[in-house]
């Protein structure tokens, strides 16, 4: 049954359904409502977990690392600076192949300090070895979290569910929360083979040498690449249970369109409106949302984008000194299979700047950037001197 819930509450309900035994977190806007809800659930006895108030995000990540190694399902959430403070541990969790699930309430990275949403935080973690799922809505956040636990535990890889801060976390919208019995059927009790246990003493996180570091990393890479199949299979399984299907990528007329926009996250809703409007006007446009960004679903990108004549990427993060991250990766994937479609790379929505429908629509009307060296063009950029000075 659908309920109108704040996104953070819906996320907390989803986490609760997964029966984590340990929740560890450190507050940071816009993640706070998620962990406040979880803390209340624990306080009310509705969630049989221990809520551990970490003294930093670095510690929170470390605690869930330890909790999973210690044999319990765990959850954490953070954003922005908190995610960056976790960086060392996130790489470590992935390298140790620990099935941790976290939510990143996506937020801009300072300086200047800015609490509003963009994707720079989780994008910066793209090489950490985590599976990254970027969700469009709170419904998808709920569904992805439940799937994330199973994906993580099957692959022995950590999963980061990326939820746009405020746009999703603070928004009340209708969400269907699965029944506990449904989730219990879908997600088996936590099992981690390498659990620290005196009856089978195991060394986790030992040193390696030039001799074998490469091989271990190669295994990690192979596991991430293989995870594409696991994510799809588990997604299909979930669809059977709930009727809600999620793919690696989410196409809205992408495969039929001459011009395809590529986006991530909650922007997709507005883009759908724009696509509808443009298609009503007879334009051959579509959009492809990368739900799964890590592992990069190369095969799906090729399938959905090869027939396009023009690709536009709007992304809420960039690789400073280079340009759009997603754009570069999409370009690389297509070029690898010999598809040379012009790709226009736009960066927008940074620091909470709303990607208004008009701005999105305007991108379709812009002439192609192809053959220019411009890459990562900033959208909605104010002219010098016109940026407001606000509180």
């Amino acid at each position, binding site marked *: 049954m659908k309920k109108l819930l704040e996104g953070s509450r819906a996320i907390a309900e989803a986490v609760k359904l997964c029966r984590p035994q340990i929740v560890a977190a450190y507050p940071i806007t816009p993640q706070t409502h998620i962990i406040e809800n979880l803390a209340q659930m624990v306080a009310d006895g509705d969630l049989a977990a221990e809520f*551990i108030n970490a003294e930093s995000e670095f510690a929170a990540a470390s605690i869930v690392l330890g909790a999973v190694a210690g044999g319990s399902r765990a959850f954490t959430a953070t954003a922005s600076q908190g995610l960056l403070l976790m960086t060392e541990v996130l790489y470590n969790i992935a390298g140790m192949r620990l099935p941790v699930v976290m939510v990143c309430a996506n937020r801009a990275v300072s300086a200047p300090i800015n609490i509003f949403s963009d994707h720079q935080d989780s994008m910066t973690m793209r090489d950490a070895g985590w599976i990254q799922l970027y969700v469009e809505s709170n419904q998808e956040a709920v569904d992805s979290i439940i799937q994330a636990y199973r994906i993580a535990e099957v692959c022995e890889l950590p999963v980061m569910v990326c939820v746009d801060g405020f746009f999703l976390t603070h928004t009340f919208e209708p969400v269907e929360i699965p029944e506990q019995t449904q989730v219990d059927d879908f997600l088996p009790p936590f099992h981690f083979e390498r659990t620290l246990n005196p009856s089978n003493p195991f060394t986790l996180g030992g040193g390696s040498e030039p001799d074998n570091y490469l091989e271990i990393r190669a295994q990690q890479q192979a596991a991430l690449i293989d995870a594409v199949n696991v994510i799809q299979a588990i997604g299909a399984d979930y669809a059977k249970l709930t009727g809600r299907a999620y793919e690696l990528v989410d196409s809205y007329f992408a495969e039929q369109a001459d011009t395809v926009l590529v986006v991530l996250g909650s922007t997709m809703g507005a883009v759908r409106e724009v696509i509808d409007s443009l298609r009503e006007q007879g334009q051959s446009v579509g959009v492809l949302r990368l739900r799964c960004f890590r592992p990069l679903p190369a095969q799906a990108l090729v399938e959905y984008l090869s027939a396009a004549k023009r690709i536009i990427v709007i992304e809420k993060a960039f690789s400073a000194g280079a340009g759009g991250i997603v754009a570069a990766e999409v370009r690389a994937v297509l070029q690898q299979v010999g598809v040379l479609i012009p790709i226009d790379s736009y960066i927008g929505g940074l620091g909470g700047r709303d990607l208004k429908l008009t701005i999105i629509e305007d991108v379709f009307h812009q002439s192609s950037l192809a053959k220019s060296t411009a890459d990562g063009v900033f959208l909605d950029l104010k002219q010098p001197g016109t940026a407001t000075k606000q509180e």
Partner: protein
Amino acid sequence: MDKRDPYRHNVLTSGHRACSGCGEAMAARMVTDLIGANAIYVNATGCLQVFTTHNQQSSWQAPWIHSVFANAAAVASGVEAALRARGDDTPVIVQAGDGGTFDIGLQCLSGMIERGHDILFVCYDNEAYMNTGVQRSSSTPHAVRTTTSPPGRLSEGKHHLKKDVLSIIAAHHMPYAATATVAFFHDLKAKVEKAMTIKGPRFLQILSPCPLGWDHDASLSVSVSRLAVETGLFPLVELENGEVTSVMRLKQQRPVQDYLKLQGRFKHLFNSTSTAETATGNANGAAEIRHLQALADARIRRYELLQAETEWDTVRASQVQRHGRGGYRNTGQEAAS
């Protein structure tokens, strides 16, 4: 599994790559065999982690995990909570060096204590960053030579004092915090065993001589550690809920020179050519030796190491007896069953 020794488990077994005469290896072997293999060990980055896990080989015969440098206490918090969630009362032990305790790991340690996790945190204090080649830490004593506190025309080694981490930790209303060192095995044993009977966070700071970083002969690790205590520079004390509840009395106070002279890290103080006192306010070698003596005297006064009403003194604690004074509870046989 190593079952060579029927009288101890060798939780930390042979083939590790610690330097010859390593005090930390010695201390860790004592601690882990006193606790046994029925525990989960969480290690911070550092010498102990590096020399015990190398290239697909581990010296640990108990479950052991290492994550990163700063987070051992937090990882342990997670492990402990996970075990508790599963109704498993296996003890959780953190092992860290002074870097992972005094400096980069202090925040996580503070969090672990504040949250009351049932964890024993053991700091093997060798008073500098030895793993990276002897750089100064906040545990490095005053006037010590390290590669980042070198003596020179304007310097007599480390300018600052050794951080009193024990007081910081005790100030958390800590159920149990104590110091120990390898030379006094039976004292160390009593403290480990006591710590293991207490619920909640517990802390042991174990002075662990480093032949490389302290620049003494490999055979002198125990002797040097004994002198650190006998001079008063490293008091052996116990604090419970922030109060000093026990000290090891010094039967006789030795002058600090006895300790300093064995170690190359203090050598510059004895042949100091620095005339820096007037120029920079730094002292010359002789004055620094007097300063170290004064620091020892102050610690002795603070903990009443000469007057304490206790029969537990440096002589009594050292004494051996025929067939030993008792060793380790856990043997390989016990752990196997």
